[in-house]
């Protein structure tokens, strides 16, 4: 079967990347697989991970999404622009507030 994709002017089939990305989101310590559309924002990833983990109804803004090395991800960023790769593990934790 020919790979999915569009034809170039020379007639070759140019495969396009899958529109979905499979991630592992560790929600408060528990890992959950999440499949997301790469055209959606990371806020959608957070909402999906919260739903998968049973944290239904909680606003994504109350949570922090971070990479393995602890970098905070902006939830307004689109998935395809966030530099994520297939199977990557992200960490989702409730915001701690200012503290003190």
């Amino acid at each position, binding site marked *: 079967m020919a790979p999915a994709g569009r034809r170039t002017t020379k007639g070759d089939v140019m495969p396009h990347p899958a529109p979905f990305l499979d991630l592992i989101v560790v*929600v408060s*310590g528990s890992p959950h697989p999440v499949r997301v559309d790469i055209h959606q924002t990371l806020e959608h990833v957070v909402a999906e991970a919260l739903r998968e983990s049973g944290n239904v109804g909680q606003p994504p803004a109350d949570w922090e999404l971070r990479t393995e*090395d602890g*970098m905070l991800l902006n939830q307004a*960023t689109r998935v395809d622009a966030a530099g994520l790769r297939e199977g990557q593990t992200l960490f989702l*934790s*409730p915001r*701690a*507030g*200012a503290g003190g």
Partner: protein
Amino acid sequence: MPESPAEPAGRPPGPPRAGPASASLALVPVEVSRGKLAAEFADWETNAAIYARRGWLLLDCGPLHAEVAFLATVPLVGVFTIPVVTACVRLDYTNYDLWPPSLTFIDPRTREPASPAVRAPATTPAGVRDALIDGHPDTGRPFLCLPGIREYHNHPQHTGDDWLMHRATGAGRLAVICEHIWQRMARNVVGLRVTVQALPPAIGTQVEMALAQGDLAAAQPPLPVPLGEGSEVGGGQAEPYAGTGLDDAMRPDATGI
């Protein structure tokens, strides 16, 4: 099950004030709390490789407690780095999760209560805030003043922020508390600060060494984001928490080396 001592009249609901008396209270069947903490350890195992790379060391895991040390990589002269334990905690999950876990900073060698080597600053919209408070009114020990930690919720200034409002988010879970500690007390350790003071001969030269902490978000390369969208990471240099009083609060002997 031991009987609960009589509650003092007028005591507000929620986790008790810290102290020896609170340790004898049994409000949740021990098997329940043990089961919940065992689930935390099972999750820890799943992510153990990542936690190890982050420098999270699970020193001990008992039926109702966990002891975790946090390693930071501290650059020395040139390209050399050394791992330093910047914080080590004992988390007590007695009566979890009717109560949040109790956090005590400990010495990783003796496991006795001890002050950590660093502060716990974080940049917030309101400026830099240090979550490490030096004396809890009940214990006199330093504590981490963050939701999800018993010492926060039983502090007189936080009686309006009840633990039960945070419990559903997992604020007291082992990985969540470790994430907060790592972000504030290990990941933001950016180097070693050495101060030399040349003073009159009668006093001599004084050398102070301390771990330097800074805002790592300023040092991260910016993520590619669509035009018009902001990013929570910047592209500049790591910015020390200078001018906040945190540098002064660091103990000169708190190098861990």
